[in-house]
């Protein structure tokens, strides 16, 4: 071949241009998130796992708060020996991240001594600290629920005056906003209190298995460790319970009538005791288990089931049919636990020495100890708490819209959290002075401009990585959280020249070979396009997609490792899945026939 060899390098950050016409929207992101010339010296990759779509200005707080807490945990709290935190940069609404590895052997040794005193204490006292963690999280959730709804009455309520409260409603506005933001940043610190330690302990066992059993699949190791009653399965379990209730109460016929969620609830309210009994069961399920959003907690528009019942209700007719067909829809917890134990013992038996078995026992014990946190934290952090947070911001949006700042409450998410505070202070000041706020003359134009910019950015592909590829990716945080290795980067670079254009490689998430029609689903709104037997091709999936798993025949995602929620849920439902293909949603065209080999991690475009 006389084709020139492709340089093993991604574009430099400085060569990445802001899309013309979106410069001021780009400038809205904080100065410390803008690329600067020195960034050309470093390696960055696009965090499409968490941020697969261009981010609105407010939603960037999710990156900021997360990386503040992740970095603090790695760098200052547990003192991971070989890695510090992760820097983030934003261009065209896309979040690029770069790790800070520690390479000086002396510094690694110094940090190692600190790490042992900190992390080892957590491992040794895991159950107690995790029980304490849940209390802290529930306290944080309760505090967020108790924050008052932001409002500005014309006159301060007489009762407050007589009680000598001494502060007025406009101050409570600022107080509530700051507490909302403070709680969100605090939540992320709790999120990372255990996360890296948990993943690290799991990976320790994972690596042992890969050495002892070189051909073991990732999913087998995951099955040995995965919890049976983890929180991530509960929302879907509740839907199955509600389907059984509907049949038992004899109200199941109403679910097949293609009514909207609200129409259905209204209908059931007229169905006497049984209708009311089902609605009562619905309330039991909703609190707390419908506090799950349809994303991963990074976009304000990924609404919770509780805020939009259409998603959970969409899967009820199918579940009801299965109940009527005689399925119990119960997860056989005892049986699954016994199977997991048998799997662990069978692999143990294959080890050749007593020493190996003793080491295996230590590692699987540690992995089991940390795993409830690894599987459970997302429900409390990215889902429940995050829903409360975005909904509180939404209330501010409604108040500001009421005062003419926006046409629609949702417009608030086009302001950064700094700008939102300034708008609130603008409104506070105007309210106190009896004058007109300045915001209504300022924000509508900016919001329109930024909304257009996001639409524009979404049309442009962005490189998967920027800068010079390091020889080794030895940053445990990057490897653990994003599954990125030198091999995966080489695979990204080789796309095109020597690779089979019809083949995509990813992580084998759940075994099984399926052929079918690809449906590219880039946002939750498109879910309704999925027909029975289609193969879901998406950027990232999470547990809320589980109900549609009974409809599709396989799943392919751009991002995710064998530990991602897409993989965990696919295994739970026995759905063939390949995750982490990198660019499946852009290389596969909607309607194409594809083959998914979930055991080998290969997707083939058949045309």
């Amino acid at each position, binding site marked *: 071949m006389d084709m020139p060899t492709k340089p093993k390098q991604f574009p430099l950050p400085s060569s990445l241009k802001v899309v013309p016409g979106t410069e001021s929207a780009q400038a809205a992101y904080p100065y410390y998130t803008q690329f600067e010339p020195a960034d050309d010296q470093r390696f960055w990759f696009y965090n499409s796992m968490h941020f697969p779509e261009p981010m609105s200005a407010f939603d960037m707080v999710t990156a900021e708060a997360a990386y503040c807490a992740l970095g603090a945990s790695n760098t200052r709290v547990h003192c991971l020996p070989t890695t510090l935190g992760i820097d983030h940069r934003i261009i065209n609404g896309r979040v690029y991240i770069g790790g800070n590895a520690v390479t000086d052997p002396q510094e690694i040794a110094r940090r*190692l001594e600190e*790490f042992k005193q900190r992390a080892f204490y957590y491992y040794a006292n895991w159950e107690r600290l995790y029980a304490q963690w849940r209390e802290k999280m529930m306290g944080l959730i309760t505090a967020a629920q108790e924050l008052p709804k932001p409002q500005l009455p014309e006159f301060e309520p007489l009762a407050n005056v007589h009680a000598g409260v001494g502060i007025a409603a406009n101050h409570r506005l600022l107080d509530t906003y700051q507490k909302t933001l403070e709680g969100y940043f605090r939540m992320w610190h709790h999120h990372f209190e255990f996360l890296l*330690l948990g993943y690290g302990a799991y990976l320790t066992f994972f690596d042992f298995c890969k050495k002892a059993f070189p051909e073991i699949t990732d999913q087998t190791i995951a099955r040995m460790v995965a919890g049976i009653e983890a929180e991530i399965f509960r929302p879907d379990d509740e839907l199955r319970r509600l389907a059984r209730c509907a049949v038992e109460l004899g109200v199941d016929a109403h679910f097949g009538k293609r009514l909207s969620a609200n129409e259905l609830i209204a209908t059931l309210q007229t169905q006497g005791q049984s209708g009311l009994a089902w609605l009562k069961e619905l309330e039991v399920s909703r609190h707390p288990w419908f506090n799950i959003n349809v994303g991963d907690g990074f976009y304000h528009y990924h609404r919770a089931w509780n805020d939009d019942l259409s998603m959970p209700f969409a899967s009820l007719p199918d579940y009801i049919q299965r109940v009527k067909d005689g399925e119990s829809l119960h997860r056989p917890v005892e049986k699954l636990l016994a199977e997991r134990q048998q799997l662990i013992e069978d692999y143990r038996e*294959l080890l050749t020495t007593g020493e190996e078995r003793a*080491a295996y026992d230590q*590692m699987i014990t*540690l992995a089991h100890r940390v795993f409830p946190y690894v599987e459970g934290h997302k429900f409390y952090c990215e889902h429940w708490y995050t829903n409360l947070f975005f909904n509180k911001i939404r209330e501010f949006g409604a108040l500001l819209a009421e005062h003419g700042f926006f046409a629609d409450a949702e417009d608030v998410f086009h302001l950064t959290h700094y700008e939102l505070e300034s708008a609130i202070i603008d409104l506070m000041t105007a309210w106190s002075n009896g004058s007109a706020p300045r915001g209504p003359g300022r924000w509508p134009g900016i919001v329109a401009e930024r909304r257009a910019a996001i639409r524009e950015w979404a049309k442009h592909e962005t490189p998967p990585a920027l800068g010079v590829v390091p020889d080794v990716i030895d940053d445990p945080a990057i490897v653990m959280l994003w599954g990125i290795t030198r091999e995966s980067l080489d695979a990204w670079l080789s796309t095109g020249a020597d690779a089979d254009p019809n083949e995509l490689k990813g992580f084998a998430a759940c075994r099984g070979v399926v052929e079918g029609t690809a449906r590219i689903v880039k946002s939750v709104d498109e879910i309704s396009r999925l027909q029975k037997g289609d193969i879901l091709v998406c950027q990232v999936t999470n547990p809320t997609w589980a109900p549609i798993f009974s409809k599709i025949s396989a799943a392919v995602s751009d991002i995710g490792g064998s530990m991602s929620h897409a993989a965990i849920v696919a295994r739970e439902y026995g759905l063939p899945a390949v995750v982490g293909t990198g660019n499946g949603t852009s290389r596969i065209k909607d309607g194409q026939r594809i083959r998914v080999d979930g055991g080998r991690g290969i997707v083939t475009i058949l045309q």
Partner: protein
Amino acid sequence: MAQNDSGFVGWFAELGLADRPQVGGKGGSLGELERAGIAVPPGFVVKTAAFEQFLAAAEQEAPIRARVAALDPEDLAGVTALSRQLRARVHAAPLPPDISAAIERAYTRLNAQQQAAVAVRSSATTEDAADASFAGLQDTYLWVRSLEQTLDKVRSCWGSLYSVESITYRRRHGFAEADVAMAVVVQTMVDARTAGVMFTRSPLTGDRSVMAIEGSWGLGSAVVGGEVTPDRWVIGKITGEISVREISNKQICHVPLTEGGIESVEVPEARRHTACMSDEELQALRAIGRKVERHYGRPQDIEWAVDRHSGAILLLQSRPETVWSSKEAAPVDRPAADPSLHVLKIFGGSR
């Protein structure tokens, strides 16, 4: 069977590995498998006592073992000349009548049950002992269709102990000739729809948690002899997960000839790219492999076949796997004083 036949002939169900000095490695293994409840094609072993009696008669005419023991293994011409001479003598010598009668009665009983052709297979006493490589050096005769042919092939098997390869191997490894005897397995042929081999650990990585299965249409001789690229699967020993599935272009297959022996025929185009085993059969084979491995307590190298008529999976042979088992692998890991120390392999930068 006459009472005194048991000195010369043993049925699989009566035999085990402990009987190897009398029935050779292959015979002992087949008996051991049948006793463990593994399906094997039915059959019997012509024990070493028959060989010894036959050889003693031959030795009276002219010495055999002493001449072999005196050979220099590097003297190819000398080995070749003696080999030719001894094989001719063994093949031409008459069978003692009591041995011949014992084999006839066993053959009749086997054939009365099966009405089928038999395989006549060498089963040397050194086989699978010091070095399993010795196993492949003696002859096997497939699709033998008459008593006369069976008796003839028994002598041929005895004679194959004096093949150039076999003699050279024994001399190089210093085996005492007096300790080397030959038993012969006579067993019903399986008219195989599919046949192949199975390793109960990965031949590529030595991984004991997977099995590698190779198979092709027809008799296993096409796979063992390397005349066809077989279909190949890697299957989780515990999970049953099929992680590798390579369906090859299987151009030829071996089928039995009515007059005895086998021939190689072309596989019809439509079947060449079709998997020769269903997933259910692969899972059944996995269960058999696990049972055999558990029985022996170590990884096995197995030959198997699927009966064309009954669909039953039968084992033709199981030997200890030798390639990986002989490697002294360093332990994967050791227990740590504090279990937390294990995580340093991830966090300490030594990954």
